């Protein structure tokens, strides 16, 4: 456990209502960006909480309110964290009111940043400590008020019960009866043992579903204030183009237009109007001249992404010797540029008070970035308050460039609140993307079916570096992008392995996409593992099991592989024209294995059934975990079967869902999710299951047709 000596607990008494506020900011590890720390620590063992996981509770006569310092984008994080809080607080789910924290309450150094499947993993212990601290404070005070020893009090259902009597006192009553200061003990109370859990590991109703089925949930697109106006912002014709001259043209005379806002130096030109329709309709009337930018096409990007040189990320044994014998197999894989396609486009409402506070309601995964960006423009000391809304999907896109700054520029110009909601075209064509990757693999198997060694060259566009201001020479010195490390290494035990990775800054913006490297890397590695199995004349499942090590990783992968294979009926007969494929991966501490059953009809892959076993360590909410796994599988299948962005003359060709096809419901296979638990610590759940689906499908296609598909999206008969 993290030492708690540096811990500082804030506590204060509100007026009248007996308000109690507890926060637990953990000390900083000053220096590098948290995400770098995180990615580098990933998979190597228990993690410290990210910086400053401030968790606040309020206890009033109405009950306990939990202000969640993480963003709800559908992943169920509010429910999972509420469950963890309720466990140590000893309250029922109904007694806990769950609210999104704003940055005044919940911001303290960036921990509201919701990314990388880190929320539960990072907050599991600090949140329990905060909740237990609150519970024990209440216990001491309850004991004083009742005149009994604290040891005689049992906490349950938001009350303390006195042993051997029928007496009880509710938390709210304890708070109301408190006089003077609360004194927080230095030591952290003992946390409950797993066998004592009443909430963690059980299903609990989602805190966000009621509003969502009623249509009353407020997304960034829905943020409204009295007297507000709507804005729209001009976009460059090519990536990297600069705005060299701008004037209002006829835009100011268009119906409903209130103001044309131009800051050519900042490359900004926008329109404020009474309605969104009017603002958007006026945009083309701006007189803008753009220059420069890239004229790259998809083929140019592919040419730039060439595996074969770079940083040596891993080296064991003598690969040259290993590949000089046995049966040598070579495979070359590519994955394309891909979009996030969250259904709610970027949106924010900003209210910039002249010389005063800037208040923002934004669909963002990363409120601190919104604050930083606004302060870059409006002044370092400017007070900024961000209210994260419900997010209509995020998938990493809402951790990057955002609509809030645009809304704020427009609001500052007109002195009224302004809402900016992007269109689908803007969202697909002016975003950042999952970068293309290239993988060249060579491996060799012995006549007895043992894997002798693998040489792995990988190249990919920047992910984390693509979204940070880190200079190129630093990126180049490091040689790899930490995001590209996810799923980068084969989890098998064999004598010789060498991994050489190359990162590239592309002329097209690239960055975080659900799971970062895990989908492209696992597609390549687990397809190649299949190639090796077939070269060895082995069953692909048996070949994997045979090469798993005896350590914890090997044990957990074996567990999910065997579970998925058994449930999928691996090795049992299938109807004619169908075949199964298997793949597995270990990512963010979570092991998953997936069996896909496919057919190929008229050059089209149809997935009929998916069985996936997932071991995320400790499961907080089984419904939530299954839902995240199902969603990951479907997003990965959509990516594997359909998704590809085309770049032509420096711009994205696809502008809407008619050309950027997502897997439709008619093609969505049933997905059976099997949860396997190991250990007492929760691991990542939002992204790891993005890993195995693409390879499992490609492997099934090979078994069925003999054609090895090495490029995403999978197109049988087209190489």
């Amino acid at each position, binding site marked *: 456990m993290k030492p708690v000596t540096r811990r500082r607990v804030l506590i204060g008494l509100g007026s009248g209502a007996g308000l109690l506020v507890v926060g637990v900011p953990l000390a900083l590890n000053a220096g590098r960006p948290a995400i770098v720390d995180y990615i580098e620590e990933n998979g190597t063992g228990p993690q410290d909480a990210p910086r400053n996981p401030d968790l606040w509770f309020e206890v009033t006569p109405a009950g306990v309110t939990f202000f969640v310092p993480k963003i709800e984008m559908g992943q169920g994080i509010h429910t999972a964290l509420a469950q963890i809080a309720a466990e140590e607080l000893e309250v029922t789910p109904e007694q806990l009111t769950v609210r999104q924290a704003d940055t005044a309450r919940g911001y303290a150094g960036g921990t509201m940043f919701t990314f990388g499947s880190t929320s539960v993993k990072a907050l599991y212990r600090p949140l329990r400590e905060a909740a237990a601290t609150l519970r024990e404070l209440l216990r001491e005070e309850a004991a004083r008020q009742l005149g009994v020893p604290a040891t005689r009090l049992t906490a349950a259902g938001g009350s303390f019960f006195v042993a051997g009597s029928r007496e009880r006192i509710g938390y709210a009553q304890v708070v109301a009866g408190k006089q003077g200061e609360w004194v927080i003990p230095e030591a952290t109370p003992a946390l409950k043992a797993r066998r004592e859990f009443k909430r963690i590991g059980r299903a609990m109703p989602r805190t966000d579903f009621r509003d969502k089925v009623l249509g009353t949930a407020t997304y960034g697109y829905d943020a409204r204030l009295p007297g507000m106006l709507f804005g729209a912002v001009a976009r460059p014709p090519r990536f990297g183009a600069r705005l060299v001259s701008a004037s209002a043209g006829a835009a100011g005379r268009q119906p409903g237009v209130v103001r044309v806002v131009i800051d050519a130096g900042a490359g900004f030109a926008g329109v404020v109007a009474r309605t969104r329709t009017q603002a958007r309709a006026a945009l083309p009337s701006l007189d803008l001249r753009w220059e420069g930018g890239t004229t790259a096409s998809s083929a140019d990007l592919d040419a730039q992404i060439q595996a074969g040189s770079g940083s040596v990320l891993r080296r064991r044994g003598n690969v040259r010797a290993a590949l000089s014998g046995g049966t040598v197999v070579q495979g070359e894989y590519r994955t394309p540029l891909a979009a996030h396609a969250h259904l709610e486009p970027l949106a924010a409402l900003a209210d910039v008070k002249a010389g005063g506070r800037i208040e923002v309601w934004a669909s963002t995964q990363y409120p601190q970035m919104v604050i930083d960006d606004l302060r870059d423009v409006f002044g370092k000391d400017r007070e900024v308050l961000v209210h994260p809304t419900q997010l209509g*999907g995020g998938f990493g896109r809402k951790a990057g460039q955002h609509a809030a700054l645009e809304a704020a520029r427009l609001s500052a110009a007109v002195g009224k609140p302004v809402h900016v909601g992007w269109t689908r075209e803007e969202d697909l064509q002016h975003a950042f993307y999952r970068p293309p990757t290239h993988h060249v693999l060579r491996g060799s198997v012995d006549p007895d079916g043992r894997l002798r060694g693998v040489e792995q060259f990988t190249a990919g566009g920047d992910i984390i570096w693509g979204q940070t201001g880190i200079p190129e020479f630093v990126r180049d010195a490091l040689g790899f992008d930490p995001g590209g490390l996810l799923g980068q290494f084969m989890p098998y035990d064999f004598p010789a392995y060498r991994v050489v990775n190359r990162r590239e800054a592309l002329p097209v913006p690239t960055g975080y996409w659900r799971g970062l490297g895990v989908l492209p890397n696992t597609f390549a590695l687990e397809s190649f593992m299949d190639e090796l199995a077939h070269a060895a004349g082995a069953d692909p499942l048996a070949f994997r099991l045979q090469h798993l090590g005896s350590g914890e990783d090997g044990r957990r992968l074996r567990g999910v592989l065997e579970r998925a294979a058994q449930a999928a009926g691996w090795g049992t007969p299938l109807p004619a024209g169908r075949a199964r494929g298997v793949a597995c991966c270990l990512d963010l501490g979570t092991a998953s294995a997936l069996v896909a059953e496919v057919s190929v009809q008229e050059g089209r892959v149809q997935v009929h059934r998916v069985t996936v076993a997932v071991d995320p360590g400790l499961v907080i909410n089984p*419904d939530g975990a299954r*839902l995240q796994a199902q*969603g990951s599988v479907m*997003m990965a299948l959509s990516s594997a079967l359909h998704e590809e962005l085309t770049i032509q003359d420096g711009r994205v060709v696809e502008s809407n869902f008619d050309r950027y096809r997502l897997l439709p419901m008619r093609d*969505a296979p049933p*997905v059976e999710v099997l949860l396997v638990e190991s250990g007492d610590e929760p691991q990542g759940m939002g992204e790891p299951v993005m890993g195995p689906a693409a390879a499992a499908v490609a492997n099934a296609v090979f078994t069925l047709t003999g054609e090895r598909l090495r490029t995403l999206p999978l197109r049988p008969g087209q190489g």
Partner: protein
Amino acid sequence: MTATDTTDTTLRTVTLNVNGQTLHQQVEPRTLLAYALRDAGLKGTHVGCDTSSCGCCVVLLDGDTPAKSCTMFAVQAEGHQITTVEGLGGPGNLHPLQQAFWDQHGLQCGYCTPGMLMTAKAMLEHNPDPTDQEVREFLSGNLCRCTGYNNIVKAVQQAARVMRDEAQAQALAGMVPGTDPSTGTAGGGAQ
């Protein structure tokens, strides 16, 4: 109806019948129904693509016809009974579809949910006992990026069962003399 002139920006008042209530909205002829509804405060109708590709904005016309409100002008909706998600059910009386989506985890981020609910409602009006594949086909114009779709199919089937049972109970009640069809309770003490 004549073609709408999208270059005409004169404001005019449209009279929309939404969820059984009459709304008078000031709109331009080019104003899409989705935005007219949202400007009237009915923000449960979501916009995801503006081109009828994603289905987030589906509302019902005249009770059983699903319409993508981002590709229909507000002025074209005059004279129709419009139902939005806000008219489907309320906090105290969730529609069986809303309850089923909640029960079956037929959503995650929820952005596609109002469109899914309204499209499913339209389907069940015409086909109260669909197969899973019929549900999938009917809802294939509605995209969801979060759930993996399977729970949506389960939710629609749960709602279909509940609605069939309710319809059957009502029909039975209507056949028994002395029964009050409005409550479905038999006057003869058949409970």
